[in-house]
């Protein structure tokens, strides 16, 4: 079989148009720059005596207009590749781009549904709805949702399994056909094969799943730790504040990369250091929720008791299942006393380590942000009103200050998921990631970089994927900040 071309049957039509659009855009940009330097200005709107408006167009306006239409044409071509690729009858006519677009069909459908629904009801959806007033926020949201949906539908989207090896496909270029495809097997490696003969496209999709499984949860835990410590530090101040801030600064001054290397070395893992750290870090969510319910409902003992008991039971079972690992006899005794039948799940060693290091690196920064916000908010009138009513300090912190700090916190949450993704990628890049076989993006970049100058195709897709996800999260955060500042 012939290898696939990038653009399939649509290529001869769309490629020249796209190239022309690019050239026009570049020409427009250069001439705009030259004209601006030469002193030409864009035309102004003038109000005529008869109350009509006229805009006189200068050469700068024409240059800008050329750039705008070229950009639109370029986007139209991209859409053409995707839509055209999806409707083409055979895989040969679809090409690589069309083939990928066709595999991603469920993702496109889900994206369209989400956008149509959200835009229709955006006035009733609060801050989330307002996001759809900002183009930047929409682009960011789209990128993030793209990766979320492709992770959710990874089983349908991916053409092969993440660790399926076909040894003849080692380092094959994108669009290579399989040597002897079986029935029901996808007959091509859309983005080529990596150095072991695994499908790069499928690994990229499954890698997204891997990344999105870890980063939001890790960020959430970092927030729990940061909020639980930052609220009292900012609210009470004094010695408590000084000591927690000192510890946070200590953790912040610790070079991230050194910490990763120290935590992930097998000797330190054998000594149980990550386990002890997880013991400390995972207790914070339980403390947070117990205090949250207790401060709110302590005037209604029956309700309070029920909620606190439920939190404790669920939280502690999960906590002990998480930290204890009875099967591993090398573990220190403290991690093996939890009875086996109650040990609901074990986390594979490396995931726990990666998780703990990422949470540990993120939480001091969250702590500082929360503390700063609390210092600002605690001078507000509604806090004084709460204090006059005789509310307890924890009620004021958790039910008065925290809800009012949600804007900056949500924005920071988005940014921080992006940052966590970068950290996770860094771990993978140094071969300290989840597991050597894992398709997560950092590890795949690490594998691909060895032969980068000869075979660029295995490292490039995960790199671009990671970049687009982080970019999406940053743009989303930017859009959210802009919209939340408007009111």
């Amino acid at each position, binding site marked *: 079989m012939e290898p696939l071309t990038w653009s399939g049957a649509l290529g001869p039509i769309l490629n020249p148009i796209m190239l022309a659009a690019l050239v026009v855009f570049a020409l427009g940009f250069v001439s705009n720059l030259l004209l601006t330097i030469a002193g030409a200005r864009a035309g102004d709107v003038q109000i005529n005596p008869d109350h009509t408006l006229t805009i006189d167009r200068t050469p700068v306006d024409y240059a800008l207009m050329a750039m705008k239409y070229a950009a639109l044409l370029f986007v139209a071509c991209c859409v053409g590749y995707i839509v055209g690729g999806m409707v083409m009858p055979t895989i040969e006519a679809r090409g690589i781009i069309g083939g990928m677009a066709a595999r991603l069909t469920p993702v496109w459908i889900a994206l369209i549904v989400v956008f149509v629904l959200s835009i229709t009801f955006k006035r009733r959806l609060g801050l989330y709805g307002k996001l759809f007033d900002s183009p930047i926020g929409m682009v960011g949201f789209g990128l993030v949702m793209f990766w979320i949906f492709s992770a959710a539908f990874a089983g349908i989207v991916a053409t092969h399994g993440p660790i399926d090896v076909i040894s003849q496909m080692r380092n094959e270029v994108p669009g290579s056909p399989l040597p002897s495809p079986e029935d029901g097997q996808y007959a091509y490696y859309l983005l080529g094969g990596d150095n072991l003969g695994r499908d790069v496209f499928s690994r990229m999709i499954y890698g997204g799943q891997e990344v999105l499984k870890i980063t939001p949860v890790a960020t959430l835990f970092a927030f729990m730790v940061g909020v639980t410590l930052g609220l009292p530090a900012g609210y009470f101040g004094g010695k408590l504040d000084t000591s927690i801030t000192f510890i946070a600064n200590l953790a912040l*001054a*610790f070079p991230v990369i050194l910490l990763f290397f120290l935590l992930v070395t*097998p000797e330190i893992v054998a000594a149980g250091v990550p386990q002890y750290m997880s013991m400390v870090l995972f207790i914070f969510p339980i403390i947070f929720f117990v205090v949250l319910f207790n401060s709110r409902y302590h005037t209604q003992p029956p309700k309070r008791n029920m909620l606190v008991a439920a939190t404790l039971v669920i939280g502690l079972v999960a906590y002990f299942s998480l930290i204890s690992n009875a099967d591993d006899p090398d573990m220190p005794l403290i991690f093996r006393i939890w009875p086996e039948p109650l040990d609901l799940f074990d986390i594979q060693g490396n995931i726990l380590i990666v998780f703990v290091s990422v949470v540990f690196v993120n939480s001091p920064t969250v702590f500082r942000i929360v503390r700063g916000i609390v210092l600002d908010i605690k001078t507000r009138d509604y806090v004084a009103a709460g204090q006059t009513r005789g509310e307890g300090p924890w009620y004021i912190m958790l039910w008065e200050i925290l809800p009012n700090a949600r804007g900056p916190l949500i924005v920071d949450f988005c940014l921080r998921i992006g940052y966590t993704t970068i950290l996770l990628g860094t771990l993978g890049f140094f071969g300290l990631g989840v597991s050597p076989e894992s398709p997560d993006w950092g590890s795949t970049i690490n594998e691909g970089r060895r032969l980068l*100058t000869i075979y660029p195709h295995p*490292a490039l897709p995960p790199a671009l994927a990671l970049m687009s996800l982080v*970019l999406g999260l940053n743009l989303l955060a930017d859009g959210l900040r802009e919209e939340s500042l408007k009111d």
Partner: protein
Amino acid sequence: MGLFILRRVGVMLLTALCLTFVVFFLTNLYPNLEKLAKTQGNARMTDAEVASWLDRNGYGGPMILRYGEWLGVVPGWTREADDGTVTGRCIDRGMEPGEAPAFCGLLQGDLGFSTVSDDEVANIIGGRLGYTGILMFWAFAVMVPAALLIGVLAGMKEGSRTDRSLSTFAIASTATPEYVSGVIFIVLLASSTAGLSPWLAENGWIEGRTLFLGSARSAMEGGITFWNFTLPVMTIALYGMGYIARMTRASMAEVMTAQYIRTARLKGVSFRNIVLKHALRNALIAPFTVIMLQFPWLLTGVVIVETLFNYNGFGWTLVQAASNNDIELLLACSIVAVFVVLVTQLISDIGYVFLNPRIRIS
């Protein structure tokens, strides 16, 4: 002011002490020492043999004492073997036991001996830091002016088209970590099979087979050239640039809404003069802090870039030391890293107070 600096330095020293102890603790855990004994002695040692080896080589005592020895505040250990030869922490090879100093640690400038490279740690670290210093210098020389320019251009007219496009660029650059931009740069500019290089070489516009070199190894021996050093410098500079540019933009935009700028406009000062003479000075105070605080981030970047481009500087040494269980070298690396982080924090705190006339420390 003097008291403020004194207190900051005190906190810094305390932090340094805590952090070095944490690193010392983590690198001197029993499994690390056991591995060290087995690589230095015999891979098939029994537990008892490991314990006696550790005892003979001064790893036996309590952790806090060994930390003191390493720091140079507790006298180094000495031990007399059965045949009368005296060994000790401070007794280097070929040195008479009587001549050896009592203390030898960080405070005396003795960083120990690298077990893997078979050399004094101070010798290794010195040369490697020099290489990294060159890389950092060029990265800063590219990053700071470019970031300030972008930030000022974007911030002088908030919401304009220039602002939008430059801000998007800044966001994109903060979303591109070094290991992504490095990979993209290598593929685009330094690969003989993909990107721009084959096309340029075919037309005879470049001399070699690639536009830039994907490895900076030759920069260490043959000197730095545009060809071998552009990509590492660009890769480091790009990630840090976006953040500084965004901070500069925010600060510039804030200054441009200030009363005195409006007064200047109403007086009829030209826009160019407003930006250059009135706004720029005040807008550059906040970015100073940010630039200083970029050093710790650059440290991670340097480790990634040196690994990616095979440049044997400080970051590369850190990776090697960590993966080879080279305890003394790793400790020295972490000292340098912690020192860089803390000193830049100190400079940024003090510099901010000096630069900003609105802050007065009583």
